[in-house]
């Protein structure tokens, strides 16, 4: 630990030693006690910390949000102190389609049937994926969507209203979270993993390799 690194810690993490890297904390605190210049820098950093703390508190989640989330949770109730979950349809969030503007809804309606028909046709002709169709537009797992036909979820794939083709990955099954992919978090690089299965869905619903 030297003065330069301690100054960095103050600029990066602020003045609270609890926010500093644990393996540098003790040495940094010792050095800070010996340097009036660094203590002055720490006071400025503490002022910015205080300003950050003055930002409005993040909103608490609403009971309605909690209810919606739990309504979609697995159903085996082993404890049961809470009232039975409401019917699934009662607490679902507004669908992607219903939240769209009328113009976009019309556009989606125009492509919905061709898309669904094309996908169904493709699925029935394809020998491999019989259980589900998974599609994704980016390489991170959070974008993975599981599509069960027929469903409005299909429309969410193409809700940009751009008329552009979209990329999709067609999988036999959803990849595991925590799978042995070497990233430490189990989010596979879908571009690499499923390159051979990537498809493009055109606005007209045509699926191409």
């Amino acid at each position, binding site marked *: 630990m030297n003065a330069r690194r301690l100054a*960095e810690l103050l*600029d*990066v*993490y*602020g003045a609270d030693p609890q*926010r500093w*890297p*644990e393996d540098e904390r003790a040495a940094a605190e010792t050095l800070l006690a010996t340097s009036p210049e660094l203590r002055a820098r720490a*006071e*400025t*950093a503490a*002022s*910015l*910390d*205080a*300003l*950050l703390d*003055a*930002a*409005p508190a*993040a*909103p*608490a*989640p*609403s009971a309605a*949000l*909690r209810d*919606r*989330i*739990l309504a*979609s*949770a*697995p*159903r*085996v*109730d*082993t*404890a*049961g*102190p*809470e009232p039975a*979950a409401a019917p699934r349809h009662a607490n679902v*969030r507004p669908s992607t389609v219903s939240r769209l503007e009328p113009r976009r809804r019309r556009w989606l309606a125009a492509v919905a049937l061709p898309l669904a028909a094309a996908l169904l046709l493709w699925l029935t002709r394809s020998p491999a994926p019989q259980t589900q169709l998974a599609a994704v537009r*980016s390489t*991170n*797992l*959070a*974008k993975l969507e*599981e599509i069960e036909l027929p469903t409005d979820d299909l429309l969410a794939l193409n809700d*940009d209203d751009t008329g552009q083709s979209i990329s999709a990955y067609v999988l036999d099954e*959803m990849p*595991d*979270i*925590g*799978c042995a992919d070497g990233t*430490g*978090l*189990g*989010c596979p690089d879908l571009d690499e993993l499923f390159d051979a299965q990537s498809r493009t869905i055109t606005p007209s619903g045509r699926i191409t390799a």
Partner: protein
Amino acid sequence: MEDSDEALMVRVGRGDAAACRILVDRHLGRLVAFAARTLGDRGEADDVAQDVFERVWKHAARWEPRAKVTTWLHRVALNLCLDRLAKRREGPLDDAPEPVDPTPSAVDRLHSDDVGRHVHEALMTLPPKQRIAITLCHYQGLGQREAAEVMETSVEALESLLARGRRALKVQLASVAPALLGDA
């Protein structure tokens, strides 16, 4: 004794409704807070939090504890937030700052009640990655390694984002709170 997050994930994977409730009650507030600070929009934050848990329900049965549950939850939430930010820009996410509201509240009528609002506005003008780094480390209380893991970057890169973000905040807030920053 309180169940660990990892133990709860196993129970959730078996369809244990009680475990689902505990997991939601333990993490929902933090996830909504993270998404709200990242996106600056409460409604979108709720949607992101709901999407995160829908992924938990879907994948819990195959969960393998290769990372802390909190890390994974934040990472999924971050990916969802980044996707929404990218859609707002209609382009790739880079270091470009958020559009600044051309009609900010009058900086010369700063009172104690206004400080928080100015800090919020200053945070929202930061480039998203800097804002995310500050949110993870300062507000969410993640350690540097965990925050870097969530952002899929190195600790060194995280430190650079934090330093640049704090420097920019100091410049912005010095004009409205010089005394608070010792610059009076």
